């Protein structure tokens, strides 16, 4: 069976940056190009990782590529991001990380010193998590053909029995929790992006969440329905995906969403909506209503959850839609990210 490219060439003859933005175009690319080509039940769940049943055990299997620029940013670098990112995708499946792989695509001319710095950062991050990097690969491309360094990490993890995390499990009545303030990572990156620099003390919130998730699952068990780390596309895109997948409605309370003054200030001057800005080290949890307070307390007792809050709930109405109750009591729909969020001036 041959594969026919389903995206009308006239619509998008070339790949755009927005196809990687984490919003609608990314979804379209996945749904129209990758999914039909690779179709299989494990893939179709489309969670942060795939769950495979092997010899009675449930393994989570995930992959992620890291292309962040600049590679060294306040609070982290591409290396620790690569380790945390995959550890977190495994955690979002409810899995304990077992092993990682690391593939490097290096551009000719990339400084060896920078490579060593990145690798050392990965070593440290993996050691702190306690997950070995067991295999890898290295390629070098001609100068001008790769932005310094790209890293792919793939991870496998073990899902304990009785844990069933999947976007489809969200149900009306669930409360939505987040472990801390939003939009920190994206703004920390912007602060050093050329053309948009500003002085700030903000550090990326990149962090491994497996331990926090472990705690959440300990307390909540099967009442934890969905876990998701809102990376590219922000909280808004992550919630939209879940609402669509589970065919439920979501109501967000703007006043409850934790956000730092500095992040707010940066979003104001750049004209960005913090709901669409990338996060790292953040996790959304959909929890059965009767367990939510307990889970919230457990999160707040953990170093990565001190500012945890309940930010919304799942409802039966408007399935597939996310509605925000604004600070002044009005309502608006929170759509999926369209294209790339460009800092606006006007």
């Amino acid at each position, binding site marked *: 069976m041959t594969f026919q490219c389903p995206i009308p060439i006239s*619509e998008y003859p*070339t*790949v*755009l*940056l*927005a196809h990687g933005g984490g919003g*609608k*175009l990314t979804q*379209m690319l996945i749904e129209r190009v990758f999914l039909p080509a690779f179709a299989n039940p494990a893939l179709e769940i489309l969670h942060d990782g795939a769950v495979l049943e092997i010899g009675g055990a449930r393994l989570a299997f995930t992959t992620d590529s890291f292309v962040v620029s600049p590679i060294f940013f306040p609070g982290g670098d591409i290396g620790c991001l690569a380790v945390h990112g995959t550890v977190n995708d495994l955690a979002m499946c409810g899995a304990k990380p077992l092993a990682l792989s690391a593939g490097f695509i290096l551009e000719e001319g990339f400084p060896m010193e920078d490579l060593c710095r990145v690798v050392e950062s990965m070593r440290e991050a993996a050691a702190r998590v306690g997950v070995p990097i067991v295999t890898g690969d290295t390629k070098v491309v001609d100068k001008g053909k790769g932005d310094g360094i790209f890293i792919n990490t793939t991870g496998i993890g073990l899902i304990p029995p009785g844990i069933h995390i999947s976007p489809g499990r969200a149900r009306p009545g669930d409360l939505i929790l987040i472990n801390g303030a939003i939009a920190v990572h994206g703004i920390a990156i912007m602060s050093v992006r*050329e*053309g*948009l620099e500003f002085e700030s003390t903000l550090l990326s919130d990149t962090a491994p969440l497996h331990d926090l998730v472990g705690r959440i699952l300990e307390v909540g068990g099967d009442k934890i329905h969905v876990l998701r780390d809102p990376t590219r596309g922000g909280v808004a895109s992550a919630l939209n995906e879940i609402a669509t997948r589970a065919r439920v409605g979501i109501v967000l309370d703007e*006043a409850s969403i934790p956000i730092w*003054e500095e992040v*707010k*200030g940066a979003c*104001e*001057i*750049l*004209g960005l909506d913090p709901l669409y800005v990338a996060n790292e080290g953040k996790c959304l949890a959909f929890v059965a209503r009767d367990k939510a307070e307990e889970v919230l307390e457990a999160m707040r007792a953990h170093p990565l959850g001190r500012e945890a809050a309940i930010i919304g709930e799942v409802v039966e109405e408007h399935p597939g*839609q996310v*509605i925000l109750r*604004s*600070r*002044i*009591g*009005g*309502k*608006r*729909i929170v*759509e999926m990210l*369209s*294209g*790339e969020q*460009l*800092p*606006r*001036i*006007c």
Partner: protein
Amino acid sequence: MKFVDEYRREEDARKLINAIHRLVTRPWTIMEVCGGQTHTILKSGIDHLLPPEVTLLHGPGCPVCVTPVELIDKAIALACTPGVILSSFGDMLRVPGSNGDLLSAKAQGGDVRIVYSPLDALRLAQKNPDKEVVFFAVGFETTAPANAMAVWQAKQMGVKNFSILCAQVRVPPAIELILSDPYNKVQGFIAAGHVCTVMGYWEYERIAEKYRVPIVPTGFEPLDLLQGIYMVLRALEEGRWGVENQYVRSVRREGNVHAQKLMNAVFQICDRPWRGIGTVRGGGLCLRPEFSEFDAEKRFGLQDIKALESAFCIAGDILQGKKKPYECPAFGRECTPEHPLGAPMVSSEGACAAYYQYGRGQ
């Protein structure tokens, strides 16, 4: 954040909303001029909190939306010219030209850079002496002083590789255009608070008098808009016209005279085509002859390109408040933020984008 958070408090919003409900005794149609105000209204859900007698129309105050297609095409042409860096505010990157937009030009290898301030574009020119840097100078009068300063500084410093593609527009002629239309339904205006911060509101007194409409320069926070709406409605209920200032913490009658001085030194009033609307007499600003060396159109000898507009896009009607975005047959179908037919769907201050983004399609 000071001077931001205080204007977003729910209890205070409630007071204003209740006051508006008590005030209104019959139907009124008012227009907020500025896209930024449309954005706040829809984002906070103010439109749904007003009494049903109040119809809010959205005005043409989106400089991104009204930038003529020809200029977008010229910007794209410049971006694709070797040795040229096209610098721009982020908003302009996804506005459709006749054939693609600046973002796709970038995807094809054009050197397009987003900047926060026109002075950043000037710095780019200084840092890249072997390249030509063109700044896409879009904006209403709020932005004109900034654009003017970049040109002024370039001249002072003798920077030879900097120029602007001038797309400056002016608000008062647009308001007159709307008011002079025989089918105009707008009875009162929420005027753009930051334009008025620069220009003052003395220009609007004549318009208010001539057409007997209340005009209220208003800020951008939810409480500002609610108070501005209250003030316009109160004037209408009391049968009054004229200018009343809501945004008193920033707007003075004479405006910012320092900014105006430099603007007038660098720019002069000219006619300009507004996308979707047609030529607006006195609707633009262009460089004075003394600064013509900084005019990118002259520097690069850019010929007038035959521009193509989508046959389906009714941006002109949207911008003049004659139709609401959801009344456009293409809204949400052929025309979405991913594949926009016109500018209002892609500018984050465009009415169509705001309606789409905040779910007012129903």
